[in-house]
């Protein structure tokens, strides 16, 4: 911190503003391990009964939390891999190759990037129904990946644009094919973008709610977000502490990934800004 800029007032203001959030987070965690006396909000007894969903047999009509978690993981990681691999090749083409209608594709990307996807949901529903992919994890993965692609391609194009073209030309002069040049010389330069996009689209898949809710409402394809929503919609026996426990369970991977990879994620904002 430099001399003519005191840090403590800023910290004080930020602390004050974030205090309500912080309190809520603390209660979220504390509540999952305790029970209050009736009528009180202060935690009294330590218990792990709210985490029983992890080891108990699920109630009839409910899926096991582990099956749901596995679904969420498959959904998020498959989406991430699909988005990243397609973005890598598509963005390279848009950045470097001169092909017909390139400008049209570029303009289309921006429009799609800014498009409110929820307005497409009925059309997507009909298409999936037609293809027989409605109510399957596969269908949601395809839709989610497709909707994430404009963002991914745009980000990766920004990274490719920063690679000097001389590096590619030097590779070609050295006798390498265009593919070898891309694989061995260009890809290592955009590796930070690749990592960031992979993580980012994984997190985006992990937290997706609307698509699975509408396109795969059945139990077989349930993911954590829809599981959580089903939990709170269950009017028969509301259990808020259970809801909080599942919520925390759902958020833990996100928090861990952010903590581990926050530097890599920042690359998206650093390197991807060039259009």
């Amino acid at each position: 911190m430099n001399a003519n800029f005191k840090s403590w007032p800023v910290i004080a203001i930020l602390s004050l503003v974030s205090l309500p959030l912080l309190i809520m987070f603390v209660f979220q965690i504390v509540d999952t391990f305790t029970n209050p006396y009736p009528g009180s909000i202060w935690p009294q007894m330590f218990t792990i009964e709210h985490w029983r969903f992890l080891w108990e047999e699920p109630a009839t009509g409910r899926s096991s939390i582990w099956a749901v978690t596995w679904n969420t993981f498959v959904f998020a990681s498959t989406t991430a891999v699909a988005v990243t691999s397609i973005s890598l090749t598509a963005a390279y083409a848009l950045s470097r190759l001169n092909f017909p209608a390139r400008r049209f594709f570029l303009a289309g990307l921006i429009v799609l990037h800014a498009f409110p996807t929820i307005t497409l949901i009925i059309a997507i529903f009909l298409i999936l129904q037609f293809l027989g992919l409605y109510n399957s994890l596969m269908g949601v993965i395809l839709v989610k990946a497709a909707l994430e692609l404009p963002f991914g391609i745009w980000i990766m194009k920004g990274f490719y644009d920063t690679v000097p073209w001389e590096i590619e030309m030097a590779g070609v002069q050295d006798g390498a094919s265009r593919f070898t040049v891309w694989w061995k010389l260009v890809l290592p330069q955009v590796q930070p973008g690749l990592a960031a996009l992979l993580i980012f689209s994984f997190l985006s898949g992990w937290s997706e709610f609307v698509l699975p809710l509408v396109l795969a409402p059945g139990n077989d394809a349930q993911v954590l977000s829809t599981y959580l929503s089903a939990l709170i919609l269950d009017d028969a026996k509301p259990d808020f502490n259970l809801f909080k426990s599942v919520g925390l369970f759902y958020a833990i991977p996100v928090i861990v990934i952010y903590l581990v990879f926050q530097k890599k994620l920042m690359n998206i904002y650093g390197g991807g800004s060039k259009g």
Partner: protein
Amino acid sequence: MQLRLENFTKKFDNLTVIDQLNLTVESGEMMALLGPSGCGKSTTLFTICGIHRMNGGTLHFGDRDVSNLPSQQRNVGVVFQNYALYPHMNIRDNIAFPLRVQKLDNATIAKKVAEIAELVHIPELLDRKPAQLSGGQQQRVALARALVRKPDVLLLDEPLANLDAKLRLEMRSEIRRIQLETGITAILVTHDQVEAMSMCDRIALMKGGKIVQLSEPDQMYNDPVDTFVAGFLGNPPISFLDAQVNADVFQVGPSQITIADSLRAKVNGAVKLGIRPEYFGPQFGTGITGKISFVETQGREDLYNVTLPDGSVLRSIQAAGPRLKLGDSVNWGISHDHALAFTPDGARI
């Protein structure tokens, strides 16, 4: 290997940037493509290495017609202006890359890399990353990578432009030494006449997509075909005076310059005189009067601009001596044997 470019035409969209250019570079020769920005020298270079396609004409390396071959099959080594080293590989892998592409075995690769590193004087740098090297060292690596697979032709695109002045001097002689030691046919693209003159066997001076003059450096300097060539070569540059032929002398305002014997029969009427700064000064007698309008001291030498009564300016470069001041009147002479005569529209007489 001899390089032969015949009737080479290049168009970008509908704009013809190079029309019917012919250029032959002899085996083992170092040729400079010199010219101002936009003269087509880089376009020519990139066509030779295959980055640009030709719109007409042919290109031969020796007897091999490479006009329609892709870059990968041309066997050309290129050194780019920013060196284009592969930042994620260490120097050894950078130099080995062209050999790896050829799928040579590791022992051969190691041997060739060691040899070429020795040639360009970087054997101790092989385990570093490009970012850890200075500009001059990166330049040497780029040269090594371009030369390691024994290309038919070496192309250098403004190789010294990114170096500071002192390194530039050093790399000038280094590049020339490496070119002579390997005996490779080389083309140097540059806009710096000093580089072209000091490094190359011959210079092709280009303007507007055409080669204006192709000759050896000293010949191009002393015997330019027109005012453009005369003005492009030489630093400080040549000065031009408007003159009238008057019997045995060029009349420049009130001053007179004797016409050299070799010119006397060829000139009449209005001419343009080109006087290089080293041929104007007190050591050539008197006859030209004017006022000093600019002084630049360069240590060993002083550069003066002398404004003549009619407003035209002559430059003079002399060994540093008693310093003249701005506004001083001088009466100096011109070595009239070295005055170059041009027609008013610029062609050499």
